[in-house]
């Protein structure tokens, strides 16, 4: 009865606040779409200059995908490098091959070197040619894009971010406007207050998760090898941790501005440590820090489902962790409400 009243009120507030509703449903889609555009740009063709290079090699460079221009002197090529017209140039002088890179962007450096290797290795190949190789993939495929790789994590990041902020600020406003104190003068139990927020907001986060995952799979064509219902389940459980963590942390903020200050503290580290970047080379303590973050479990489960096509039997430990996080946050929040009423 009291719980129902609280849930109904939260739904009504959302209904009156169309803008927040919009932020919750449209913003994650918009951002995910923008990121997909960034990652799905066409393959990069390095600009490579040649100085006195045998014509046969120049042709090989072109064939390997380089955008080749020829120069008469190394000095001319050097100035083209400086003015950013070239990413690298290759010079042939007195029997050695000299490669000079512009060098300021590591990813371009890598693609130039890779290209040079491919183009020129045929020259150095042993007699009889390169042995033919058969390449197969356990998961994923040759035409899997970068976005397919990071997309699952990004779904998690955006679901987490927006729910964390919206739920956190809503709970914060309940405190700053005095309504929380007013509620504590009614027979509403502290746990009912916390659970009411979880269910009331949960209705909207469920819808948001459905819209976001459907958009990622059907709208953006993200690689999806598992069951959609599992993807939805992971996103939903992650949203719940965002919701419960947001409402809990809001009691340590005194204003919306202070709530925003949690973004660099809570959201950004989670993004970096959640598996968006390979964790294997990170310091041990950083990996442990990652293990304390809800997003890393969700990211793991999302990748398992979307890329590796795994099922519930494989991802249930991650799901249990997410559930545990939510429960801990809810209990902590119920306890922290003692500030307003001891019983």
């Amino acid at each position, binding site marked *: *009865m009291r719980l129902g009243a609280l849930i109904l009120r939260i739904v*009504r*507030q959302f209904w009156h606040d169309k803008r927040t509703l919009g932020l919750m449903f449209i913003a994650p889609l918009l951002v995910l779409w923008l990121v997909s555009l960034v990652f799905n740009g066409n393959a990069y063709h390095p600009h490579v200059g040649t100085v006195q290079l045998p014509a046969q090699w120049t042709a090989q460079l072109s064939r390997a995908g380089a955008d080749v221009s020829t120069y008469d002197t190394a000095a001319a090529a050097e100035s083209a490098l400086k003015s950013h017209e070239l990413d690298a140039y290759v010079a042939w002088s007195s029997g050695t091959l000299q490669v000079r890179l512009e060098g300021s962007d590591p990813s371009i450096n890598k693609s130039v070197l890779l290209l040079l290797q491919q183009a020129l290795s045929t020259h150095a190949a042993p007699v009889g040619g390169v042995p033919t190789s058969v390449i197969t993939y356990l998961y994923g495929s040759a035409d899997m894009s970068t976005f397919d790789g990071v997309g699952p994590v990004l779904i998690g990041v955006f679901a987490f971010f927006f729910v964390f902020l919206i739920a956190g600020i809503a709970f914060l406003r309940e405190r700053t406007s005095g309504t929380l104190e007013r509620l504590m003068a*009614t*027979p509403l139990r502290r746990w009912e207050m916390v659970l009411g927020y979880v269910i009331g907001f949960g209705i909207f986060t469920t819808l948001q998760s459905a819209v976001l995952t459907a958009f990622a799979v059907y709208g953006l064509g993200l690689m999806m090898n598992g069951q959609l219902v599992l993807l939805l389940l992971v996103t939903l459980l992650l949203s719940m941790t965002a919701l419960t963590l947001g409402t809990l942390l809001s009691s340590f903020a005194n204003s919306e501005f202070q709530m925003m200050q949690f973004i660099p503290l809570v959201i950004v580290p989670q993004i970096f440590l959640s598996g968006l970047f390979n964790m294997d080379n990170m310091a041990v303590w950083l990996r442990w820090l990652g293990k304390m973050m809800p997003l890393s479990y969700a990211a793991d489960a999302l990748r398992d489902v979307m890329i590796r096509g795994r099922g519930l039997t494989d991802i249930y430990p991650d799901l249990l962790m997410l559930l545990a996080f939510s429960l801990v946050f809810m209990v902590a929040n119920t306890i922290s409400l003692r500030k307003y009423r001891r*019983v």
Partner: protein
Amino acid sequence: MTHGTAAKGQTAIRVAQVHKSFGRKHVLRDITLTVESGEIFGLLGPSGSGKTTLVKLIAGLDDATSGEVEVAGVRMPSLGMLSKIGYMAQSDALYTELTAKENLAFFASLYGLSGVQRAKRMAEVMELVNLSDAMNGVVSAYSGGMKRRLSLAIALLHQPGILILDEPTVGIDPVLRKAVWDELKRMSEAGTTILVTTHVMDEAEKCHRLGLIRNGVVMAVGTPEQLKQDTGAGSVEEAFLVYGGGEQ
């Protein structure tokens, strides 16, 4: 009609040797007072004297640093008592994005009202504070006085036996203010105990008994007549100055 009321002459609220401090700051010192069932008890004191702090302790919203607070014989804070108390905070605690009706329905449900009875009570309390026409208005479009009246209406919804009102008439025009006081008087005659804070002297005259509070100390308790007699003052205001002057 009202529930949770005891017979007249019984103690409804008992505050004994209550101290309250926030960190090093002593806000209430050794407060002892009782409010009888069915009376209108006024806490009169300047801003910052500790009135809000005291009524919050009585409403169960905070704990005394030492001392005891009992409502209807039950030590506060107590969950069971909360449904018998009607509380109106000093600052309006309303959901401004909702309509008055939605606010009322929400609070009424928290107190266990439902269906026809809830609708009936909502209409009654809005009639009382003269807001019936603004029932479907969004609260953010309300004036300050209207918000104050809506807060009062919400405190009255569940017909509590004990009403705690923190500066209820601030920002309400004189005509309505009189109507509100007439209603408080009527409710007290029906058995409701009313604890009201104010810093307006002419409202103090309307209370059955008064507690004069200053700097966290209750300087005197008595009927307005007694207080005037004891100090030889012509008004409660003068009486207050006499007590306050002695304390300084």
